[in-house]
């Protein structure tokens, strides 16, 4: 699937949330989509062994992990993932997933090397901007990168939400409307730099007028569950900061210690994090029993047949993915119906906590970012 056009369909006046329509060569879809990332793709492969249908999603991502043994990127699985995406008419985007240390130490030559690594493999070629790259340097580098692309290829600039705050808004403003897709390295909305840059992003995103061409922002690598914010979904949190496509962090067993892997393998269902659609946040079996008098995790696992080809953990993660997408669709429908978004969101525990702790304190500051 090729993205042909991204246009602003509606802007909610109060929240400044934007509804975008994405036109592709095979159809249209709205923004606020949770991508089929590495784990979900693995689940799809397991389902296919049992001739079960895959998930209905227009975007698939592949997070490439660093292999510390070979001291290089692990490109295994890239071709298979790409073929699967093409066969199922999905937009396919890749991402070199770095640790904080790797990101802090990233140099231009590393980014160029990674760009060249995948230049012949994909149509949407990512380029990771180092944290201190200025707008002028970016323009210079971009010119050279564009000259390497074939006519059917697109450049996907990826800028960190921890990028230098002086350059971040300038680079985003430069790229919006020019690049069809802009990647944003995302974390846990825990540092002042992240909050500042994400606020800039939201302000710039919401200033594009209706029917004007714009860009799709894809949040790469965020935490699926933001525990410090009452365990709300990372997909929801970043969709509130101009996130159009959400692609959570992929876990790499090669970088995990033996103890962590052992703990993961021995995890009981009562320890699985379940997306509670009523509370709009993640919780586990014990608090569910105390609040609802029922173990929702166990009940959900019991409802899914083994003929789906998934184990218990996969079932919970797939259901959580589906419910998160449903909630993002709800936000889109609220924008379309011109409902009071913030008032509706206040009715749900997790969303209300996020509004009170993050969004509402920022909303007055966003109006002061009108220069962007």
């Amino acid at each position, binding site marked *: 699937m090729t993205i042909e056009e991204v246009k602003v369909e509606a802007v909610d006046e109060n929240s400044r949330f934007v509804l975008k329509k994405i036109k592709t060569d095979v159809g249209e879809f709205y923004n606020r989509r949770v991508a089929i990332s590495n784990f979900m793709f693995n689940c799809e492969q397991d389902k296919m062994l049992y001739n079960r249908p895959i998930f209905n999603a227009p975007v698939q991502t592949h997070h490439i992990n660093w292999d510390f043994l070979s001291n290089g990127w692990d490109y295994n699985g890239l071709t298979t993932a790409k073929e699967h995406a093409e066969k199922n008419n999905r937009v396919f985007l890749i991402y070199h997933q770095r640790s904080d240390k790797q990101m802090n130490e990233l140099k231009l030559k590393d980014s160029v090397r990674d760009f060249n690594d995948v230049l012949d493999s994909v149509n949407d070629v990512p380029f990771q901007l180092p944290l201190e790259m200025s707008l002028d340097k970016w323009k210079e580098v971009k010119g050279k990168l564009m000259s390497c692309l074939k006519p059917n290829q697109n450049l996907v600039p990826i800028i960190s939400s921890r990028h230098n705050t002086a350059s971040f808004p300038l680079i985003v403003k430069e790229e919006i409307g020019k690049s069809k897709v802009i990647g944003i390295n995302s974390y846990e909305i825990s540092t002042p730099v992240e909050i500042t840059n994400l606020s800039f992003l939201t302000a710039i995103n919401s200033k594009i007028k209706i029917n004007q061409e714009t860009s799709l922002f894809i949040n790469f690598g965020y935490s699926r569950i933001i525990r*410090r*914010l*009452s*365990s709300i979904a990372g997909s929801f949190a970043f969709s509130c900061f101009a996130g159009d496509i959400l692609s959570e962090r992929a876990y790499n067993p090669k970088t995990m210690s033996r103890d962590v892997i052992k703990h993961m393998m021995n995890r009981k269902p009562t320890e699985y994090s379940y997306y509670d659609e009523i*509370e709009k946040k993640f*919780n586990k079996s014990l*608090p*569910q029993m*105390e*609040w609802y008098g029922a173990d929702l995790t166990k009940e959900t696992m019991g409802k899914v047949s083994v003929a789906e080809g998934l184990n218990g953990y996969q079932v919970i993660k797939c259901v959580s993915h589906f419910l998160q997408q449903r909630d993002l669709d709800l936000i889109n429908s609220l924008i379309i119906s011109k409902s009071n978004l913030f008032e509706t969101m*206040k*009715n*749900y*525990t997790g969303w*209300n*906590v996020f509004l*009170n*702790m993050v969004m509402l304190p920022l909303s007055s500051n966003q109006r002061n970012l009108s220069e962007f």
Partner: protein
Amino acid sequence: MANAIPKWVQERVSKLWKKYDSKEMTFEMIQNVLTMDDRNTISVFLNELRSADWIEVKQSKEDARKRIYILKQPNDIMLEINSNDNRRSKS
């Protein structure tokens, strides 16, 4: 004057009322009832109650840093909400 509160806040008020009625409560006492919620959620919950005037808040005599919370009587809250609604519809 009391105002309406979101559903998730009402559910938690019911649990607190069942346990403590209109007795004085500390944050820790509230945590012991609302076991599914973390500190952030309880803080926002109390903030919602305070904004909607469903709760009285005063300083603890033992420790000035801590707060004591007292739920208002449901009848009083309903009368105030009703009075608010009548005032709005007249204007």
